């Protein structure tokens, strides 16, 4: 069961994002903070006359907020709202076959929630991500 994946690096790890979840890839402009929102919500940004909520992946993974001013993001839509997921870097799109996470493989805290499987690319295994897992739900955020 092969699928198309966008190769990316998040928090210094190679990951694969199913292209079905990716609406576009963009370099963000100025990010406007949204005070009091959960920490992984970096703020709001305007993309083509639309206001998009920016998600800081490193904070979402439980890592300290990156010193780099990351601007590259993957746009995804969840429940009618658009989100920009910040990434370190983006690579090409590959058609790969996903395998389930090996049993016994215990992932680090932040990764456990968003990983759905493993693909192998260029001899390197990488996690398949479900971007929506990073979107803080309304109930949890309060």
């Amino acid at each position, binding site marked *: 069961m092969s699928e198309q994946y966008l190769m990316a690096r998040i928090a210094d790890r190679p990951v694969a994002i199913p292209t079905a979840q990716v609406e576009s890839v963009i370099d963000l402009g100025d990010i406007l903070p949204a*005070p009091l929102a959960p920490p992984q919500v970096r703020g709001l940004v305007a993309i083509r006359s639309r*206001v998009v909520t920016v998600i800081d992946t490193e904070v979402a993974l439980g890592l300290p907020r990156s010193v780099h001013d990351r601007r590259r993001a993957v746009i995804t839509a969840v429940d009618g709202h658009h989100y920009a997921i910040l990434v370190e870097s983006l690579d090409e799109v590959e058609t790969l076959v996903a395998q389930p996470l090996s049993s016994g493989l215990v992932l680090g805290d932040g990764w456990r929630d968003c990983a759905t499987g493993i693909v192998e690319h260029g001899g390197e295994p990488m996690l398949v991500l479900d971007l929506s897992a990073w979107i803080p739900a*309304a109930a949890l955020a309060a």
Partner: protein
Amino acid sequence: MDELLQEFIAETRETLDALSGEVVAWEADPTDRARLDSIFRFVHTVKGSCGFLDLPRLARLSHAAEDVLAAVRDGGRIPDTALVNAVLAIIDRIGELVEAIDAGVSLEDSSEDLLIAALAENAAPVAVTATAPQARSHSRSVRLGVDLLDRMMSGMSEMVLARNDLARRLREGDCDPRMEAALERLSLTVADMRETVTRTRMQTIDTLFSAVPRLVRDTAAELGKTVVLSIEGGDVELDREMIELMRDPLVHVIRNSIDHGIEAPADRAAAGKPMAGLMTVSARQSGNQILIDITDDGRGIDTDRLVAKARDQRLMPEEALRALSEDARCELVFHPGLSSRDTVTATSGRGVGMDIVRANVEHIGGRVILSNRPGKGLAVTLRVPLTLSILTTIIVAAGGQQFALARQSVDEIVKVRSNQVRIDRIGGVTMATVRGERLPVVGLSELLGLGVAAIDTLVLVSTRDGSYALAVDEVIDSEELVIKPAAPAVMATGVYAGQTLPDNGRPMLLLDGAGVATRAGLVFDRIAAIAPDETEAAADEKRGLLFDDLDGHRRVVPLAVIDRVETVPVAAIRFTAGRLRLASGDALVPVHATAAMAPDTTVSLLRLTDGAVDIAYAIGDAIEIVALPRDIAPAQGAGVIAGVVMIADEQVEVIDVHALFAATAGPSSGAQPLCLLHADAGGWMTNFLKPVIEASGYRCVTRLAPGETAAVALAMSDGGADRTGSAAPLVTLRAEREPTGPRDESIYRYDREALQAALMRSREAMV
């Protein structure tokens, strides 16, 4: 009207087309409830529209059919073949009539009685002679799904934002003038389109008001009351969505008014009011808001009873209750669980009502305003924005970031530097005192974790529960913004109501005034923290409306007597029967004007009221609302001028409203004594005499209603009318010039002086 008629025709025609299938199915199975319902809905709708459009024949037909169908729905009638046929014949006839109206031809109505008679139980079936169908004329309207309009609207918003984006990018670089011209043209087109698209979503508020007469009639009948309804401003346009959202609150307020406000006929008579209650439902546009007023002349809100109930239910501490201002006491009616009526009725009085009305109206960004005149009536004003999607906002800055705040939740913006404001720190909290009112201060940038800022500008925010002062770094602007919901995670903070993209292309969050209060931990228990002496001072401070009068003088009139300011065509004001009068609906309102008004223009009128009498004052221009200074230099015999005050270093004449009402208003209708005319056969009394008597301040009747007593009765000496049944002094009039005998105390009927003297004597005797 033509437009409404066209709409009605299009709608009826379309429903009829859709209904033809239903009709056949119902014919096949008359017990089919769903079909019955849809046919019932159809005749009901037709009936409703007809009443409004004044199409009596259609109204009669549809009313008859509706009655029968209602009986069938209730199980009172069995839908047998005869009944089905009769109903179908009526539906066919409605179709024919509609086509006839559209084609502008008349249709003879001979068979309509037969059609209606056929609906009766055990009626003989009638053979219906079908008229030849007319050729349909072409329709100029298309009916669209609401979804499509919504998509158009959101597409339009996107387009506006895209245009703004483009404009901004062009401004950034060196721009070719030709490019700028093209952009300019695009902007104009976009603005034009936006307006047009917005209008497609607008409906006249008549769609909301058309159901009101029936509602009032039914509710009043249910409660054994009589209510005279007057509806004004039905042509005001409002967003379609808004109309739907206003439906429930409106129904609630109207039912409440009839149930709680308007008294039973006997109580009204005892209170010296006309037996029938008067209710006015009116709509008007004020800026980008729509004001719907529901006014009745009932007993108003009994605030003492409300307070007593609040005390019983321990809603708030005793001292807080006692400190409430009259307005605040009135507002208790919005408290869930408080209803001023002691008994629970089927109509209202369950204690759920006004709180829900307020919640609903505020949910759509509106406000409910009460104006209570105990014993005289209540006016409820529902103030709502024109549309939901575009909001007027105040842009504020805090912690280096900009936020929007809905305009309608902002009462006032004050600078701390001004001497009206005092800031105190008490027990770890900050408090602002603005003109005697103490408000908790919420520092916006601190609340949002954007750092501590000095308190400089306060935005007074009012929420459902109370008001507070929001400290911001600065107030930047007021802007109309398209608001969209923010992501759930952002909304969940509770302090935002949505997000928006203003013309500068930088996203902005819309603050939720009530949410900010909650987040800041404010608890409102309505403690009026005003010291007693300050209360007096505040109550003493009167406000007035400053205006330029027609004669060019600047004058001021106390705000309390102004009912509203309206603009009317000068043509509506005529000099009739010795004075200027404005034709307002069915009523004539006396008008005071200090100079002639130019014909073929419009004029602003201050509608003044003393609670019972309405008069109008024609003005040039309303300027602003000012505090009325207490020191008035009295006037030297200047008619309706009470004196002169200094406002902003200028001499301003104060209108003497007492003299104005005395001079302008005729005899008050409330206190008119009753004159019973024992009418003669020839009608001389009602035709010749009545106007004279009425001019002397009497109200004339030819028969006393139950509970009424006449102050004086008049009869003709040869009248032969039944003069019993009235204890009032009787004045007899004779047709002959000379008395018929020494004991003839009657008065010659054209002896006006003697007649008025006799009336005067009887009035003195009464006192």
